[in-house]
């Protein structure tokens, strides 16, 4: 048996964004090492420039409609992959911008911080293209290694180290589960490529294998019951890293989940739908109820993130083309609202050195801009019209109604009301309570930029979502026959 690897220039073109970013991040690291006394802000802007150039490259690919596969179907560039790569890079740009002030408080290794952020982003770009269980394993670990270091980055802070340790142990444990699951699936199907698995008969080995893979990806997206690392890691990690961790890996892991369940396991849809229904109900309910008791804003956003992932999983529970559209759109609305809220937390935290919700008392007096921005982001996360979160939730619920998942719909609606409570508690503290220290809070230009981008995204997606909906519908066009595949697998059944 032989393996032949033929690569032509036009094949490598499909990898152009990744190759460019790889070269760029090596250059950034080399510059950081070789030029003494270079201000880390310059490194940050250099990194932002490279990531934006990659982003533009991908937008151009999307416009041209460049698609293709590489390395025996291990790497696929289609519109879904392009969407998630743009998603990851957009969050990377916003995270790097909101890090600049925070990095000033590091005593060493300021330049390497940006290198590691871009390295993780590169790993997640490959995750979006993974079309094979080997590339799923390698890219997942690739992106997580950067995060292990980033979470424990504050070397002198015990909290950060402890968060890093917890994240590391549970992350590697998940990797062990993933690898073992992949080995079982390989034994049952004899292949690692998703599209070649599509026609294998069901068996216990396959079921156990995919359950293990689902558990490992569940760790990544932080769905209940695999969420135990989320609150501690979010709390202890440097705040910009928390912001990055709360959005980009979830998006990239969602890309793998969608691809795996829609392509490799389309025939078993009636079985896995149940899995997602349960995970979704547990995540929404647990996340929202525990969030009420939180005293720290990072922990509050962590639990709210668990609940938001519960909402996203409704789309997978629907298991239709519209379900996947809704997931993509929802993630986009979550990106802007969540990163915006974190930018406010970073801006406030840099000045008052605290993330306790008590310290947000009277934020409106100290900085009306930050308070108003936080209000809009929290309302969008809660799903209040006319903001982005409302359209996202609506879209997800419509996908659920299509599939007559009324229990899920009812749980989702009750959870919106619960979430409204703890978001509004923060709003009340900002607007009604008196500040202990009324000195004004100054916001730096990079953080202001992130907040403006977040506000623009939240408002535009809410008021004029049409072009974005067209974009996500086009990105998942290849799943338009997913229901037919289920029907073909169940000739007598009531599939779907």
């Amino acid at each position: 048996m032989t393996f032949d690897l033929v690569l032509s220039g036009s094949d490598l073109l499909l990898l152009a964004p990744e190759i460019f970013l790889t070269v760029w991040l090596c250059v950034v690291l080399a510059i950081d090492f070789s030029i003494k006394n270079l201000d880390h802000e310059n490194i940050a802007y250099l990194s932002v420039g490279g990531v934006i150039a990659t982003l533009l490259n991908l937008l151009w690919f999307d416009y041209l409609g460049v698609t293709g596969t590489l390395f025996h179907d291990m790497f696929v560039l289609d519109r879904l992959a392009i969407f998630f790569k743009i998603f990851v890079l957009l969050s990377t740009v916003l995270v790097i911008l909101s890090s600049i002030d925070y990095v000033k408080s590091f005593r060493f290794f300021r330049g390497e911080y940006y290198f590691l952020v871009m390295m993780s982003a590169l790993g997640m770009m490959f995750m979006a293209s993974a079309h094979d269980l080997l590339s799923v394993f390698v890219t997942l670990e690739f992106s997580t290694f950067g995060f292990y270091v980033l979470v424990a980055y504050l070397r002198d802070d015990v909290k950060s180290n402890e968060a890093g340790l917890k994240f590391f142990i549970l992350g590697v444990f998940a990797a062990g589960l993933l690898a073992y699951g992949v080995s079982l699936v390989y034994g049952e199907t004899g292949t690692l490529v998703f599209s070649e698995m599509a026609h294998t008969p069901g068996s216990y080995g396959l079921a156990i294998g995919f359950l293990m893979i689902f558990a490992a990806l569940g760790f990544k997206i932080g769905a209940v019951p695999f969420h135990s690392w989320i609150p501690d890691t979010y709390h202890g990690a440097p705040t910009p890293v928390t912001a990055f961790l709360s959005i980009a890996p979830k998006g990239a892991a969602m890309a793998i989940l969608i691809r795996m369940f829609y392509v490799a396991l389309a025939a078993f849809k009636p079985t896995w739908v149940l899995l997602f229904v349960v995970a979704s109900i547990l995540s929404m309910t647990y996340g929202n109820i525990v969030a009420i008791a939180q005293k720290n804003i990072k922990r509050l956003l962590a639990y709210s993130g668990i609940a938001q992932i519960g909402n996203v999983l409704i789309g997978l529970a629907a298991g239709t083309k519209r379900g996947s559209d809704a997931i993509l759109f929802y993630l986009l609305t979550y990106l802007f609202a969540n990163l915006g809220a974190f930018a406010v937390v970073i801006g406030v935290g840099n000045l008052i050195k605290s993330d306790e919700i008590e310290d947000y008392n009277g934020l409106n007096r100290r900085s009306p801009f930050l308070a108003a921005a936080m209000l809009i982001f929290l309302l969008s996360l809660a799903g209040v019209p006319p903001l982005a979160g409302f359209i996202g939730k609506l879209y997800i619920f419509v996908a659920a109604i299509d599939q007559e998942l009324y229990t899920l719909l009812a749980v989702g609606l009750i959870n919106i009301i619960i979430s409204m409570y703890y978001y509004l508690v923060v709003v009340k503290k900002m607007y009604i309570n008196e500040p202990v220290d009324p000195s004004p809070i100054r916001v730096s230009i990079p953080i202001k930029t992130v907040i403006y981008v977040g506000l623009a995204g939240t408002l535009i997606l809410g008021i004029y979502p049409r072009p974005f909906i067209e974009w996500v519908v086009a990105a998942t066009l290849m799943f338009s026959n997913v229901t037919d595949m289920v029907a073909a697998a169940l000739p007598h059944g009531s599939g779907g």
Partner: protein
Amino acid sequence: MTVPLWYYLVLSGLIFLIGLVGVLVRRNIIIILLSIELMLNATNINFVAFSSYLGNLAGQVFVFFALTVAAAEVAVGLAIIIALYRHRSSINVDEFRLLKW
């Protein structure tokens, strides 16, 4: 006489379970790290066994990547453990309760 496939599967299943229980039960971080290595190596036995049984090389390729990933994992993990040890002079997970576990 060749060893049948299921011998390998039972062996790897047992090693995987030992690793799993070790992660959940032991309190020393180094032992936890070793248990995770056991889990990853059980995977490798599985892959090699399936690969030779199916006459398909993809499984053996996976083993190389799994070994590399495991090595990188240990490097990062030990670095984090050393950083923690400098603060606490302990590698017992029960000591790390600053954040609600």
